[in-house]
């Protein structure tokens, strides 16, 4: 039984990891960022490239991927999203375009492929990020087999969630973010620099996506379109949890991950996936605003 729960827990942690960044950018800022998956992908590629060129291991790649994805997110916010606040459908289309651009940039090696220049770690092929050996060797602890890599993901995800909670609820900046979430005009009237805060918030959410990318690279294939499948799961969790609620995201990730894990072990993964989608549909019918919605705008 504990093993089944562990599988569910690790599925939950991955869902949460992806949804965490999204709960900031979508939940807090109302931006449907279709390029979120590509920020995850950029995080993964940062880890691959850092391994090839700088010899950095997974742990050192984490902050680097946070910064890289954060910078890309910052650029996307400044160049595209800033001009489209309040136009939710336009943002969706624009960020989708950005997603395709980012994918192709990696696939075509930033255009250098046209000139017969090949950069190791880029291009259309599958890439591989090395995982330190001690993270792949399971060990026994009190009769239970501990899988270090999964455990590492769970712990790190919880730490990041705690950090995000702290930033949002215990710092002046977080208070400003929450004020903007409730009512941007009123926040601006109170002297909050809405543009600056929004930019930083978006960059932080993007950085979290980058961290998710590094961790995913440890057990998934790294390839240019790895992000597109990921982003669906992310939106699922955020919508079920309730837009703008960090606790809701946590709860939804936990719930959906456990359902998926239990059914996958007892019957099979394909059925588990179908049940998860069924549960999501029922939950949204029952609570259209998500499990823990708050009144906004």
């Amino acid at each position, binding site marked *: 039984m504990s093993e089944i729960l562990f599988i569910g827990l690790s599925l939950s942690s991955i869902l949460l990891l992806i949804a965490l960044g999204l709960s900031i950018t979508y939940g807090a800022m109302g931006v449907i960022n279709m390029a979120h998956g590509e920020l995850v992908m950029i995080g993964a590629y940062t880890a691959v490239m850092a391994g090839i060129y700088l010899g950095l291991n997974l742990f050192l790649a984490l902050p680097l991927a946070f910064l890289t994805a954060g910078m890309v997110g910052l650029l996307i916010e400044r160049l595209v999203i800033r001009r489209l606040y309040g136009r939710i459908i336009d943002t969706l289309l624009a960020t989708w375009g950005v997603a395709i651009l980012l994918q192709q940039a990696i696939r075509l090696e930033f255009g250098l492929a046209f000139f017969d220049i090949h950069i190791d770690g880029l291009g259309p092929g599958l*890439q591989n990020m*090395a*995982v330190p050996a001690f993270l*792949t060797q399971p060990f026994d602890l009190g009769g239970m087999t501990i899988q270090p890599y999964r455990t590492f993901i769970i712990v790190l995800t919880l730490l990041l969630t705690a950090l995000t909670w702290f930033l949002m609820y215990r710092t002046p900046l977080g208070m400003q973010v929450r004020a903007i979430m409730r009512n941007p005009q009123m926040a601006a009237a109170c002297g909050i620099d809405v543009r600056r805060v929004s930019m930083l918030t978006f960059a932080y959410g993007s950085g979290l996506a980058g961290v998710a990318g590094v961790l995913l690279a440890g057990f*998934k*294939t790294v390839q240019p379109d790895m992000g597109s499948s990921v982003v669906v799961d992310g939106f699922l969790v955020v919508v079920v949890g309730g837009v703008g609620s960090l606790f809701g995201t946590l709860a939804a990730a936990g719930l959906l991950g456990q359902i998926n894990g239990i059914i996958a072990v007892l019957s099979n*993964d394909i059925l*588990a996936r179908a049940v998860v989608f069924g549960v999501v549909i029922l939950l949204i019918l029952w609570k259209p605003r998500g499990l823990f919605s708050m009144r906004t705008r």
Partner: protein
Amino acid sequence: MTLDRRKFLKQSSVLGAAAALGPSLYASTARAADEIEVGVLFSLTGGLSIVEKSLADATMMAISEINAAGGVMGKMIKPIMEDGASDPKTYNEKASKLVIRDRVPTVFGSYTSASRKAVLPVFERRKNLYFYPTYYEGFECSKNVVYTGAVPNQQLSNFIPWIINTLGKKKFFIVGSNYIYPREMAKVSKILIEQNGGEWVADEYLELGHSEWGAMVSRIKDSGCDVVLSNVVGDSVVAFYREFKNQGLTHDKLPICATVTSEIEIAAMGAEFAVGSYTSFPYFQAIDTDINGAFIERYRAFVNDGSAVTHHALESSYFQVFLWKQAVEKAGEATPDAIREGVKGQVFDAPNGKVTIDPENLHAYLTPRIAQWGADGQGTIIDEYPDPIQPLPYVAYGETGDDLFCKASGLDTTKL
């Protein structure tokens, strides 16, 4: 795509401008008497482009080598390259374009069975010819396709008995991606397992591209099996092998024996996750012959990547062009019917050894080999047949060498 075409044009002397601008527009006017046009149809974009681009490269390399050596009957081969875009419907459209508008006598193409099935009606209705380089599930008998990859009996008939007798493993857990190839492979495997006195404890599938293997590996662990037979395809392979190791399973106690895991997937997962596991293919990059060494070197130079890997479908993509050349020369003319008659019984010394096209079912005689993966990402060939064996596309339904279902006269449906 642009890159390949450009690179190719540099190396051969075909009509550059016409080809680059859009060959179809010029097809009727620019078709010179001293060239033969052929179609090359692989996915250069989309999810499958990772593998299919390497097949297109190998095809183009063979064409440029033939042209550099004087062409076919003194004529240059002019490839018309189309992009299947990882989408069967696009494959069908592009195949129609090549066959109907460009009127090529042969198309080289396809990686997945889905794309082959999508173009099949075009070639059968128009009585054209398709050269298909990939290992596939069999159960097909077309007069309009020449199959140069392995069929199940060439991957499994040595593999399963070897696992049972040499490895001493008797309880199989069969796992695959959920589509036709893994399911047919499982069918053949079960017959062979039972014939050889083994048993299978489970037969499980996950959707193509699935990357969350936690639950499946945990089931493998609890199933009591002593060997895993994997027909998992594509990037799922990477997630599968990684999860396998992360859950503490090792290939020395519970080996994964795979029919699809090739040099490409090993490189993508990191060799340490596959060390000690096995794969069965007629071709491995590790085949230690001069002809293969030279082939790998030429391929790396052609794609301008010193660490590019070669694999079974890639090698078939390469040698099938030479079989086609020999067929045209034997027939004396480049029409689909003449080429089909000419290709029957053709022999070629490919990097994997001698290949022969079976005159009855148009599949290739290939040499089954088993390799164990090492820490360097390369296989060590630990078992191989002394000679190429006959292709039997209907082996799952009782086909034997003495009782062929698929003959030159067509498929004998009464035997199914």
